[in-house]
Protein backbone atom coordinates (compact mmCIF):
# COMPACT_ATOMS: atom_id res chain seq x y z
CA UNK A 1 0.00 0.00 0.00
CA UNK A 2 2.91 2.34 0.72
CA UNK A 3 4.08 1.89 -2.81
CA UNK A 4 0.67 2.96 -4.13
CA UNK A 5 0.62 6.05 -1.96
CA UNK A 6 4.16 6.84 -3.10
CA UNK A 7 3.31 6.52 -6.77
CA UNK A 8 0.31 8.88 -6.33
CA UNK A 9 2.55 11.27 -4.35
CA UNK A 10 4.58 12.26 -7.40
CA UNK A 11 1.52 13.22 -9.45
CA UNK A 12 0.34 16.82 -9.90
CA UNK A 13 -2.67 17.72 -7.72
CA UNK A 14 -5.94 19.26 -8.93
CA UNK A 15 -8.46 20.37 -6.28
CA UNK A 16 -11.60 19.54 -8.26
CA UNK A 17 -13.69 19.72 -5.05
CA UNK A 18 -13.05 23.48 -4.78
CA UNK A 19 -16.19 25.27 -6.09
CA UNK A 20 -13.89 27.72 -7.91
CA UNK A 21 -11.97 24.97 -9.67
CA UNK A 22 -12.11 25.40 -13.44
CA UNK A 23 -11.67 22.53 -15.84
CA UNK A 24 -10.36 25.13 -18.32
CA UNK A 25 -7.71 26.59 -16.00
CA UNK A 26 -3.99 26.83 -16.65
CA UNK A 27 -3.48 24.43 -13.72
CA UNK A 28 -5.16 21.67 -15.73
CA UNK A 29 -3.03 22.40 -18.80
CA UNK A 30 0.14 22.44 -16.69
CA UNK A 31 -0.81 19.12 -15.10
CA UNK A 32 -1.49 17.67 -18.56
CA UNK A 33 2.00 18.76 -19.71
CA UNK A 34 3.53 17.20 -16.62
CA UNK A 35 1.73 13.88 -16.48
CA UNK A 36 -1.01 11.79 -18.11
CA UNK A 37 -2.98 12.03 -14.88
CA UNK A 38 -3.35 14.10 -11.73
CA UNK A 39 -4.34 13.30 -8.17
CA UNK A 40 -7.66 14.80 -6.96
CA UNK A 41 -9.61 14.69 -3.67
CA UNK A 42 -11.83 12.02 -5.31
CA UNK A 43 -9.15 9.88 -6.97
CA UNK A 44 -7.44 10.47 -10.30
CA UNK A 45 -8.03 12.88 -13.19
CA UNK A 46 -6.99 11.55 -16.62
CA UNK A 47 -5.88 14.40 -18.86
CA UNK A 48 -4.50 13.21 -22.21
CA UNK A 49 -6.38 12.11 -25.32
CA UNK A 50 -4.93 8.61 -25.82
CA UNK A 51 -5.38 7.70 -22.17
CA UNK A 52 -8.98 8.92 -22.03
CA UNK A 53 -9.69 6.93 -25.20
CA UNK A 54 -8.23 3.75 -23.71
CA UNK A 55 -9.65 4.10 -20.22
CA UNK A 56 -13.19 4.93 -21.40
CA UNK A 57 -13.49 1.30 -22.46
CA UNK A 58 -10.97 -0.37 -20.14
CA UNK A 59 -12.31 -3.77 -18.99
CA UNK A 60 -11.20 -3.19 -15.37
CA UNK A 61 -13.24 0.01 -15.06
CA UNK A 62 -16.97 0.36 -14.48
CA UNK A 63 -19.22 3.39 -14.72
CA UNK A 64 -18.44 5.39 -11.61
CA UNK A 65 -21.36 7.51 -10.45
CA UNK A 66 -23.73 4.69 -9.37
CA UNK A 67 -22.68 5.12 -5.74
CA UNK A 68 -23.51 8.83 -5.56
CA UNK A 69 -26.62 8.44 -3.33
CA UNK A 70 -24.62 6.20 -0.95
CA UNK A 71 -21.78 8.75 -0.90
CA UNK A 72 -24.14 11.47 0.29
CA UNK A 73 -26.00 9.08 2.59
CA UNK A 74 -29.38 9.31 0.87
CA UNK A 75 -32.08 6.77 0.03
CA UNK A 76 -35.53 7.28 -1.49
CA UNK A 77 -37.27 7.33 -4.87
CA UNK A 78 -34.53 9.08 -6.86
CA UNK A 79 -31.80 6.97 -5.24
CA UNK A 80 -33.66 3.74 -6.08
CA UNK A 81 -34.01 4.82 -9.71
CA UNK A 82 -30.46 6.12 -10.01
CA UNK A 83 -28.89 2.93 -8.66
CA UNK A 84 -30.97 0.63 -10.88
CA UNK A 85 -31.18 2.40 -14.21
CA UNK A 86 -29.18 1.48 -17.31
CA UNK A 87 -26.17 3.74 -16.66
CA UNK A 88 -25.55 2.18 -13.24
CA UNK A 89 -25.72 -1.41 -14.51
CA UNK A 90 -22.78 -3.48 -15.75
CA UNK A 91 -22.15 -6.82 -17.45
CA UNK A 92 -24.97 -9.04 -18.67
CA UNK A 93 -27.73 -7.03 -16.97
CA UNK A 94 -26.48 -3.85 -18.63
CA UNK A 95 -26.20 -5.61 -22.01
CA UNK A 96 -29.79 -6.90 -21.76
CA UNK A 97 -31.21 -3.47 -20.89
CA UNK A 98 -29.17 -1.77 -23.59
CA UNK A 99 -30.35 -4.29 -26.21
CA UNK A 100 -33.94 -3.59 -25.20
CA UNK A 101 -33.48 0.19 -25.30
CA UNK A 102 -31.48 0.46 -28.53
CA UNK A 103 -34.41 0.21 -31.00
CA UNK A 104 -36.13 3.19 -29.36
CA UNK A 105 -32.99 5.30 -29.92
CA UNK A 106 -32.27 4.07 -33.44
CA UNK A 107 -31.04 6.54 -36.06
CA UNK A 108 -34.02 5.38 -38.16
CA UNK A 109 -36.45 6.90 -35.65
CA UNK A 110 -34.57 10.20 -35.72
CA UNK A 111 -35.22 10.69 -39.42
CA UNK A 112 -38.95 11.06 -38.68
CA UNK A 113 -38.23 13.52 -35.88
CA UNK A 114 -36.03 15.89 -37.88
CA UNK A 115 -38.91 17.89 -39.46
CA UNK A 116 -40.42 18.24 -35.97
CA UNK A 117 -37.14 19.66 -34.63
CA UNK A 118 -37.20 22.22 -37.41
CA UNK A 119 -40.80 23.27 -36.67
CA UNK A 120 -40.01 23.55 -32.97
CA UNK A 121 -36.85 25.64 -33.49
CA UNK A 122 -38.59 28.02 -35.88
CA UNK A 123 -41.56 28.38 -33.57
CA UNK A 124 -39.31 29.36 -30.68
CA UNK A 125 -37.23 31.78 -32.77
CA UNK A 126 -40.49 33.35 -34.06
CA UNK A 127 -41.34 34.13 -30.44
CA UNK A 128 -38.42 36.53 -29.93
CA UNK A 129 -36.84 37.29 -33.33
CA UNK A 130 -38.58 40.62 -33.92
CA UNK A 131 -37.32 42.22 -30.70
CA UNK A 132 -33.68 41.48 -31.59
CA UNK A 133 -32.86 40.12 -28.14
CA UNK A 134 -33.68 37.25 -25.83
CA UNK A 135 -32.50 35.22 -22.88
CA UNK A 136 -31.07 32.44 -25.01
CA UNK A 137 -31.54 29.86 -22.24
CA UNK A 138 -35.08 30.72 -21.07
CA UNK A 139 -36.42 31.51 -24.54
CA UNK A 140 -34.59 28.98 -26.69
CA UNK A 141 -32.39 26.21 -25.29
CA UNK A 142 -34.64 25.18 -22.39
CA UNK A 143 -37.97 25.06 -24.27
CA UNK A 144 -36.18 23.51 -27.26
CA UNK A 145 -34.46 20.71 -25.30
CA UNK A 146 -37.69 19.97 -23.43
CA UNK A 147 -39.85 20.35 -26.54
CA UNK A 148 -37.73 17.70 -28.27
CA UNK A 149 -38.48 15.35 -25.38
CA UNK A 150 -42.21 16.20 -25.72
CA UNK A 151 -41.97 15.26 -29.43
CA UNK A 152 -40.14 12.07 -28.55
CA UNK A 153 -42.75 11.07 -25.96
CA UNK A 154 -45.70 12.20 -28.06
CA UNK A 155 -46.66 14.90 -25.54
CA UNK A 156 -48.04 18.29 -26.62
CA UNK A 157 -45.44 21.10 -26.60
CA UNK A 158 -47.44 22.92 -23.90
CA UNK A 159 -46.20 20.34 -21.39
CA UNK A 160 -42.63 21.60 -21.73
CA UNK A 161 -42.62 23.96 -18.74
CA UNK A 162 -43.89 21.25 -16.39
CA UNK A 163 -41.31 18.72 -17.64
CA UNK A 164 -38.47 21.24 -17.45
CA UNK A 165 -39.38 22.06 -13.84
CA UNK A 166 -39.54 18.38 -12.90
CA UNK A 167 -36.15 17.72 -14.53
CA UNK A 168 -34.70 20.77 -12.78
CA UNK A 169 -35.91 19.58 -9.37
CA UNK A 170 -34.66 16.04 -10.01
CA UNK A 171 -31.32 17.48 -11.12
CA UNK A 172 -30.78 18.82 -7.59
CA UNK A 173 -29.96 15.21 -6.69
CA UNK A 174 -26.71 15.46 -8.63
CA UNK A 175 -25.54 18.50 -6.70
CA UNK A 176 -23.83 18.64 -3.32
CA UNK A 177 -27.08 19.71 -1.62
CA UNK A 178 -28.94 16.47 -2.52
CA UNK A 179 -29.54 15.61 1.13
CA UNK A 180 -31.10 19.00 1.97
CA UNK A 181 -33.14 18.92 -1.26
CA UNK A 182 -34.31 15.33 -0.82
CA UNK A 183 -38.03 16.17 -0.41
CA UNK A 184 -38.04 18.31 -3.59
CA UNK A 185 -36.04 15.71 -5.52
CA UNK A 186 -38.29 12.81 -4.58
CA UNK A 187 -41.52 14.77 -5.19
CA UNK A 188 -40.28 15.51 -8.73
CA UNK A 189 -39.23 11.88 -9.18
CA UNK A 190 -42.73 10.72 -8.18
CA UNK A 191 -44.25 13.09 -10.76
CA UNK A 192 -42.01 11.88 -13.56
CA UNK A 193 -42.85 8.24 -12.79
CA UNK A 194 -46.57 9.11 -12.80
CA UNK A 195 -46.04 10.58 -16.27
CA UNK A 196 -44.18 7.51 -17.47
CA UNK A 197 -46.95 5.22 -16.20
CA UNK A 198 -49.61 7.26 -18.01
CA UNK A 199 -47.63 7.13 -21.25
CA UNK A 200 -47.16 3.37 -20.98
CA UNK A 201 -50.89 2.83 -20.31
CA UNK A 202 -51.73 4.88 -23.41
CA UNK A 203 -49.39 2.87 -25.66
CA UNK A 204 -50.59 -0.44 -24.25
CA UNK A 205 -54.15 0.57 -25.17
CA UNK A 206 -53.03 1.89 -28.56
CA UNK A 207 -49.76 0.33 -29.78
CA UNK A 208 -47.47 2.52 -31.87
CA UNK A 209 -43.97 2.34 -33.33
CA UNK A 210 -42.75 5.61 -31.83
CA UNK A 211 -40.28 5.91 -28.96
CA UNK A 212 -42.53 4.80 -26.07
CA UNK A 213 -44.33 2.32 -28.32
CA UNK A 214 -41.02 0.63 -29.15
CA UNK A 215 -40.11 0.33 -25.47
CA UNK A 216 -43.59 -0.97 -24.60
CA UNK A 217 -43.16 -3.63 -27.30
CA UNK A 218 -39.85 -4.70 -25.70
CA UNK A 219 -41.73 -5.01 -22.39
CA UNK A 220 -44.13 -7.67 -23.82
CA UNK A 221 -41.55 -10.27 -22.76
CA UNK A 222 -41.21 -9.36 -19.08
CA UNK A 223 -38.11 -11.53 -18.69
CA UNK A 224 -36.30 -9.21 -21.12
CA UNK A 225 -37.62 -5.88 -19.83
CA UNK A 226 -39.84 -5.89 -16.76
CA UNK A 227 -42.37 -3.20 -15.85
CA UNK A 228 -40.05 -1.37 -13.45
CA UNK A 229 -37.19 -1.43 -15.97
CA UNK A 230 -39.50 -0.03 -18.64
CA UNK A 231 -40.45 2.92 -16.44
CA UNK A 232 -36.83 3.45 -15.34
CA UNK A 233 -35.79 3.64 -19.01
CA UNK A 234 -38.45 6.23 -19.91
CA UNK A 235 -37.46 8.35 -16.92
CA UNK A 236 -33.81 8.14 -18.03
CA UNK A 237 -34.73 9.38 -21.51
CA UNK A 238 -36.63 12.36 -20.09
CA UNK A 239 -34.12 13.25 -17.39
CA UNK A 240 -31.04 12.56 -19.52
CA UNK A 241 -32.22 14.57 -22.49
CA UNK A 242 -33.28 17.90 -21.01
CA UNK A 243 -30.38 19.48 -19.07
CA UNK A 244 -27.70 18.08 -21.38
CA UNK A 245 -29.11 19.54 -24.60
CA UNK A 246 -30.13 22.80 -22.90
CA UNK A 247 -26.58 23.26 -21.59
CA UNK A 248 -24.83 22.14 -24.76
CA UNK A 249 -26.72 24.58 -26.99
CA UNK A 250 -25.98 27.44 -24.58
CA UNK A 251 -22.29 26.53 -24.70
CA UNK A 252 -22.51 26.50 -28.50
CA UNK A 253 -23.85 30.06 -28.54
CA UNK A 254 -21.10 31.13 -26.14
CA UNK A 255 -18.45 29.71 -28.52
CA UNK A 256 -20.00 31.30 -31.62
CA UNK A 257 -20.40 34.72 -29.99
CA UNK A 258 -16.66 34.57 -29.33
CA UNK A 259 -16.02 33.45 -32.95
CA UNK A 260 -18.32 35.58 -35.12
CA UNK A 261 -16.58 34.55 -38.35
CA UNK A 262 -17.53 30.92 -37.64
CA UNK A 263 -21.18 31.91 -37.09
CA UNK A 264 -21.27 33.79 -40.38
CA UNK A 265 -19.70 30.79 -42.10
CA UNK A 266 -22.35 28.46 -40.63
CA UNK A 267 -25.13 30.78 -41.86
CA UNK A 268 -23.62 30.73 -45.31
CA UNK A 269 -23.01 26.96 -45.33
CA UNK A 270 -25.79 25.23 -43.35
CA UNK A 271 -24.33 21.85 -44.32
CA UNK A 272 -21.59 22.58 -41.73
CA UNK A 273 -24.15 22.40 -38.87
CA UNK A 274 -23.44 18.76 -38.07
CA UNK A 275 -19.68 19.41 -37.94
CA UNK A 276 -20.37 22.51 -35.82
CA UNK A 277 -22.10 20.36 -33.19
CA UNK A 278 -19.05 18.07 -33.03
CA UNK A 279 -16.59 20.97 -32.84
CA UNK A 280 -18.55 22.69 -30.05
CA UNK A 281 -18.65 19.43 -28.10
CA UNK A 282 -14.90 19.02 -28.54
CA UNK A 283 -13.92 22.43 -27.17
CA UNK A 284 -16.82 23.17 -24.81
CA UNK A 285 -18.67 19.97 -23.76
CA UNK A 286 -21.36 20.21 -21.09
CA UNK A 287 -20.11 16.89 -19.71
CA UNK A 288 -16.58 18.00 -18.84
CA UNK A 289 -15.58 14.67 -17.34
CA UNK A 290 -16.71 11.06 -17.45
CA UNK A 291 -16.53 8.99 -14.25
CA UNK A 292 -15.15 5.45 -13.97
CA UNK A 293 -14.27 3.21 -11.00
CA UNK A 294 -11.65 0.45 -10.77
CA UNK A 295 -13.31 -2.93 -10.13
CA UNK A 296 -9.90 -4.53 -9.41
CA UNK A 297 -6.43 -3.24 -8.59
CA UNK A 298 -4.63 -2.83 -11.90
CA UNK A 299 -1.53 -1.25 -13.41
CA UNK A 300 -1.79 1.35 -16.14
CA UNK A 301 1.13 3.41 -17.51
CA UNK A 302 3.26 1.91 -14.69
CA UNK A 303 0.88 3.33 -12.07
CA UNK A 304 -0.79 0.90 -9.67
CA UNK A 305 -4.44 1.93 -9.37
CA UNK A 306 -6.15 0.33 -6.34
CA UNK A 307 -9.60 -1.27 -6.54
CA UNK A 308 -12.31 1.28 -5.82
CA UNK A 309 -10.32 4.27 -7.16
CA UNK A 310 -12.48 6.86 -8.95
CA UNK A 311 -11.10 8.10 -12.25
CA UNK A 312 -12.42 11.30 -13.80
CA UNK A 313 -11.68 11.23 -17.51
CA UNK A 314 -11.33 14.91 -18.46
CA UNK A 315 -13.01 14.94 -21.86
CA UNK A 316 -12.40 18.64 -22.36
CA UNK A 317 -8.68 18.66 -21.48
CA UNK A 318 -8.15 15.52 -23.60
CA UNK A 319 -9.71 17.17 -26.63
CA UNK A 320 -7.25 20.06 -26.70
CA UNK A 321 -4.26 17.72 -26.14
CA UNK A 322 -1.59 19.22 -28.45
CA UNK A 323 -0.24 15.79 -29.42
CA UNK A 324 -3.56 15.00 -31.14
CA UNK A 325 -4.86 18.53 -31.86
CA UNK A 326 -1.86 20.61 -32.96
CA UNK A 327 -4.25 23.43 -34.01
CA UNK A 328 -6.86 23.27 -31.26
CA UNK A 329 -8.59 26.58 -32.10
CA UNK A 330 -12.37 26.45 -32.67
CA UNK A 331 -12.88 25.71 -36.36
CA UNK A 332 -16.04 24.07 -37.72
CA UNK A 333 -14.33 23.19 -41.01
CA UNK A 334 -11.42 21.25 -39.46
CA UNK A 335 -11.10 17.46 -39.71
CA UNK A 336 -10.87 16.26 -36.11
CA UNK A 337 -10.34 13.12 -34.08
CA UNK A 338 -13.54 12.10 -32.28
CA UNK A 339 -14.38 13.95 -29.04
CA UNK A 340 -15.63 12.36 -25.80
CA UNK A 341 -18.69 14.55 -25.24
CA UNK A 342 -20.93 11.47 -25.36
CA UNK A 343 -18.62 9.35 -23.19
CA UNK A 344 -17.63 6.05 -24.77
CA UNK A 345 -17.42 2.29 -24.45
CA UNK A 346 -20.33 0.23 -23.13
CA UNK A 347 -21.91 3.34 -21.58
CA UNK A 348 -21.66 5.56 -24.67
CA UNK A 349 -24.60 7.99 -24.57
CA UNK A 350 -27.74 6.17 -25.71
CA UNK A 351 -29.45 9.35 -26.88
CA UNK A 352 -26.62 10.70 -29.04
CA UNK A 353 -28.40 10.28 -32.39
CA UNK A 354 -31.29 12.37 -31.07
CA UNK A 355 -28.97 14.95 -29.47
CA UNK A 356 -26.84 15.26 -32.60
CA UNK A 357 -29.95 15.53 -34.77
CA UNK A 358 -31.76 18.15 -32.70
CA UNK A 359 -28.68 20.30 -32.10
CA UNK A 360 -27.78 20.20 -35.80
CA UNK A 361 -31.24 21.49 -36.78
CA UNK A 362 -31.16 24.15 -34.06
CA UNK A 363 -27.72 25.55 -34.98
CA UNK A 364 -28.55 25.55 -38.69
CA UNK A 365 -31.70 27.63 -38.19
CA UNK A 366 -30.26 29.90 -35.50
CA UNK A 367 -27.27 30.85 -37.68
CA UNK A 368 -29.61 31.75 -40.51
CA UNK A 369 -32.04 33.81 -38.46
CA UNK A 370 -29.89 35.46 -35.74
CA UNK A 371 -27.14 37.57 -37.32
CA UNK A 372 -24.21 38.99 -35.32
CA UNK A 373 -25.24 37.54 -31.94
CA UNK A 374 -23.59 39.26 -28.96
CA UNK A 375 -23.88 39.25 -25.17
CA UNK A 376 -26.46 41.71 -23.89
CA UNK A 377 -25.93 41.59 -20.11
CA UNK A 378 -24.34 39.25 -17.60
CA UNK A 379 -24.31 35.52 -18.31
CA UNK A 380 -24.89 33.28 -15.25
CA UNK A 381 -23.01 29.99 -15.24
CA UNK A 382 -23.15 26.66 -13.47
CA UNK A 383 -19.80 25.64 -11.92
CA UNK A 384 -17.17 25.08 -14.60
CA UNK A 385 -16.66 21.35 -14.01
CA UNK A 386 -18.83 18.24 -13.84
CA UNK A 387 -21.90 19.07 -15.97
CA UNK A 388 -21.62 22.73 -16.90
CA UNK A 389 -23.56 25.35 -18.85
CA UNK A 390 -25.25 28.74 -18.71
CA UNK A 391 -28.35 29.33 -16.57
CA UNK A 392 -29.05 32.74 -18.08
CA UNK A 393 -27.62 34.20 -21.29
CA UNK A 394 -29.01 37.56 -22.45
CA UNK A 395 -28.09 38.07 -26.11
CA UNK A 396 -28.85 40.66 -28.80
CA UNK A 397 -28.73 40.01 -32.55
CA UNK A 398 -29.82 41.40 -35.91
CA UNK A 399 -32.93 39.53 -37.07
CA UNK A 400 -32.47 38.16 -40.60
Amino acid sequence: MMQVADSFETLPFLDVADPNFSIRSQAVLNARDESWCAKTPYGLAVLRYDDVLKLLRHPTLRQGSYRWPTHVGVTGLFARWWENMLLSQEGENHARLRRMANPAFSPKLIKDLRPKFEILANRLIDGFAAKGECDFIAEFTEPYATGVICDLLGLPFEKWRELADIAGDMGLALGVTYKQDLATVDAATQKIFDYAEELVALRRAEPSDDFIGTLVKANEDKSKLNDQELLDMIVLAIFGGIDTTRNQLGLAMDMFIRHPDQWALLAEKPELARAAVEEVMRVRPTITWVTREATETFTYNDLEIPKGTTLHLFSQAACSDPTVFPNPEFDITAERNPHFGFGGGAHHCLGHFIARGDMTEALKLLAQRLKNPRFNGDVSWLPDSGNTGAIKMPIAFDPA
Partner: protein
Amino acid sequence: MKIDVDLTICLLHGQCVIAAPEVFSFADDGSLVWVTDPDEGLRADAEAAADACPEQAIIIS
Protein backbone atom coordinates in the same frame (compact mmCIF):
# COMPACT_ATOMS: atom_id res chain seq x y z
CA MET B 1 -25.23 -11.75 -45.57
CA LYS B 2 -21.75 -10.26 -45.43
CA ILE B 3 -20.48 -8.08 -42.59
CA ASP B 4 -17.70 -5.58 -42.79
CA VAL B 5 -16.45 -3.05 -40.22
CA ASP B 6 -14.68 0.15 -41.19
CA LEU B 7 -11.84 -0.09 -38.70
CA THR B 8 -10.63 3.39 -39.61
CA ILE B 9 -13.66 4.85 -37.80
CA CYS B 10 -14.38 2.07 -35.26
CA LEU B 11 -13.58 3.29 -31.72
CA LEU B 12 -14.09 -0.12 -30.04
CA HIS B 13 -17.00 1.08 -27.88
CA GLY B 14 -18.28 -2.49 -28.07
CA GLN B 15 -21.93 -1.59 -28.67
CA CYS B 16 -22.00 -4.27 -31.42
CA VAL B 17 -20.73 -6.86 -28.92
CA ILE B 18 -23.66 -5.93 -26.67
CA ALA B 19 -26.23 -5.89 -29.50
CA ALA B 20 -25.08 -9.03 -31.35
CA PRO B 21 -22.77 -11.16 -29.16
CA GLU B 22 -22.99 -14.11 -31.57
CA VAL B 23 -21.58 -11.97 -34.38
CA PHE B 24 -19.14 -9.56 -32.70
CA SER B 25 -16.68 -10.07 -29.85
CA PHE B 26 -13.45 -8.74 -28.42
CA ALA B 27 -10.28 -10.82 -28.75
CA ASP B 28 -7.97 -11.19 -25.74
CA ASP B 29 -5.79 -8.36 -27.03
CA GLY B 30 -8.84 -6.05 -27.07
CA SER B 31 -9.29 -5.97 -30.84
CA LEU B 32 -12.71 -6.45 -32.46
CA VAL B 33 -13.44 -9.74 -34.22
CA TRP B 34 -16.60 -10.67 -36.09
CA VAL B 35 -18.20 -13.41 -38.18
CA THR B 36 -17.88 -12.13 -41.74
CA ASP B 37 -20.67 -14.28 -43.22
CA PRO B 38 -23.12 -15.18 -40.43
CA ASP B 39 -26.31 -17.23 -40.82
CA GLU B 40 -29.32 -15.40 -42.17
CA GLY B 41 -30.91 -16.15 -38.77
CA LEU B 42 -28.58 -13.59 -37.20
CA ARG B 43 -29.63 -10.79 -39.54
CA ALA B 44 -31.85 -9.00 -37.01
CA ASP B 45 -29.05 -9.02 -34.44
CA ALA B 46 -26.47 -7.82 -36.98
CA GLU B 47 -28.76 -5.01 -38.09
CA ALA B 48 -29.36 -4.02 -34.47
CA ALA B 49 -25.58 -3.85 -34.01
CA ALA B 50 -25.14 -1.70 -37.13
CA ASP B 51 -27.89 0.60 -35.87
CA ALA B 52 -26.44 0.86 -32.37
CA CYS B 53 -22.85 1.57 -33.47
CA PRO B 54 -22.15 5.17 -32.33
CA GLU B 55 -19.65 5.62 -35.17
CA GLN B 56 -21.87 3.85 -37.76
CA ALA B 57 -18.88 1.73 -38.79
CA ILE B 58 -20.72 -1.53 -39.59
CA ILE B 59 -21.61 -2.34 -43.18
CA ILE B 60 -24.03 -5.19 -43.94
CA SER B 61 -24.39 -6.41 -47.51
